[in-house]
């Protein structure tokens, strides 16, 4: 049985993940389908996120569904002091599905427990953003032809980087190995290393970003090192230009290597990488729409031929 809501990538089994990826591939082949005719989807963005909202709303539009909602808490009744519960109960009177982004952690789990209609977590604070993970997995599958036995190098903010944490969780079914490249202050937290140990996932840690960490890998997953994450700004100044990918660093990388990034990118991938056929981050972002189409149909029990 498929889960009724999508809150956490950990709620999805290997089978669930593969089913979503297969459906997403069908949407990539034929994107516009009238599968949501007569259905209303609510996009409740208590915290603004234009990129994610546009991706979800385009997914609904390309399925011929209709959309209600808000893109900023300032225009919702939560500014009047309405509880999340009341907002969810009210919206679920109108919509067949709720897509929610909220700044509070655990809000999506709570919403899924009180809502009579399926809820998709489009990000709850720094906790979870499962459709990002599914689109990462889809892109890896698409470019590598498999999710099994891949070597993944992740670079940047591994301490707070939600996308990286969920990617480790999502790939844990598929026998991957990891290289973690991060400044000491933003190193991968112990709990994720413990998770890798428990699941038998091999990993190596690097504090220096060089081609050594890239050359044996199938996927290079870059993330942003954010200034606001540093307690010591001197430390930030020291590392800000160190975790940057330049085109020449890819010279001896594997033929099948693809460079991914959850976007927005700032300086961590230099512009000269964009023209390298190994750069795949814009296609990755586009894949988000197909994956979201697949998740929406899956939760509503709609078969996709």
């Amino acid at each position, binding site marked *: 049985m498929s889960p009724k809501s999508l809150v956490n990538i950990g709620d999805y089994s290997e089978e669930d993940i593969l089913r979503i990826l297969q459906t997403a591939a069908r949407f990539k082949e034929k994107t516009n389908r009238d599968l949501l005719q007569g259905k209303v989807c609510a996009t409740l963005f208590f915290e603004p996120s234009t990129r994610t909202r546009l991706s979800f709303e385009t997914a609904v539009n390309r399925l011929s569904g209709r959309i209600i909602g808000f893109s900023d808490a300032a225009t919702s009744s939560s500014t009047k002091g309405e509880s999340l519960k009341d907002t969810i109960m009210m919206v679920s009177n109108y919509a067949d599905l709720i897509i929610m982004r909220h700044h509070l952690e655990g809000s999506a789990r*709570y919403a899924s427990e009180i809502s009579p209609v399926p809820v998709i977590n489009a990000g709850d604070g720094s906790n979870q953003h499962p459709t990002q993970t599914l689109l990462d997995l889809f892109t890896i599958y698409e470019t590598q032809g498999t999710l099994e036995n891949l070597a993944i190098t992740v670079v940047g903010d591994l301490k707070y980087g939600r996308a990286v944490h969920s990617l480790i969780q999502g790939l844990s079914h598929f026998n991957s190995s990891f290289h973690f490249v991060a400044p000491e202050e933003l190193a991968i937290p112990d709990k994720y290393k413990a998770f890798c140990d428990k699941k038998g996932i091999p990993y190596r840690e690097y504090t220096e970003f060089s081609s050594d960490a890239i050359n044996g890998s199938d996927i290079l997953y870059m993330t942003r090192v954010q200034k606001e994450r540093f307690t010591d700004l001197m430390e930030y100044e020291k590392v800000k230009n160190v975790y940057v990918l330049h085109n020449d660093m890819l010279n001896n990388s594997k033929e099948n290597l693809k460079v991914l990034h959850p976007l927005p990118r700032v300086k961590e991938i230099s512009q000269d990488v964009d023209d390298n056929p190994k750069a795949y981050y814009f296609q990755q972002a586009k894949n988000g729409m197909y994956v979201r189409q697949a998740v929406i149909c899956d939760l509503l029990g709609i078969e996709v031929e």
Partner: protein
Amino acid sequence: MRKELQVAALENGTAIDHIPTSAVFKVVSLLHLQKLNHRVTIGNNLKSSKMGSKGIIKVSDKFFREDEINRIALVAPNVNLNIIRNFEVVEKKKVVLPDEIIEIVRCNNPKCITNNEPMKTRFHVIDKEMVELQCHYCELKIRKEEIELI
């Protein structure tokens, strides 16, 4: 030599023994004893051959439900409960930490939904021996020494 009881004997009720001295008043609060009309005797810093010093709580004519007494395991995992009828111990119970803890513990994450919405907290006990909890909502893990009661 006559052995003197450190706390008055109980005719009927529950005696909670071997409470670590630092946990006595947390046990009071976990069992909401301050709201009871029953006779409650609290002894603390009493001599104990096992523990050096300990606390005891005796509640007259009150027999707690399993889920009530298991809350104690959060702060005092090794206490003994004696059920007393007619001055005799008729049953001894050990407290057991449940798999899930609802409405007793506060989440330490200020950005957790449970600290911002009128709702019950809910934790999964992920390590019964070390008493480690995980928030069902924001997924924060809380170690025994970080546990804050509501």
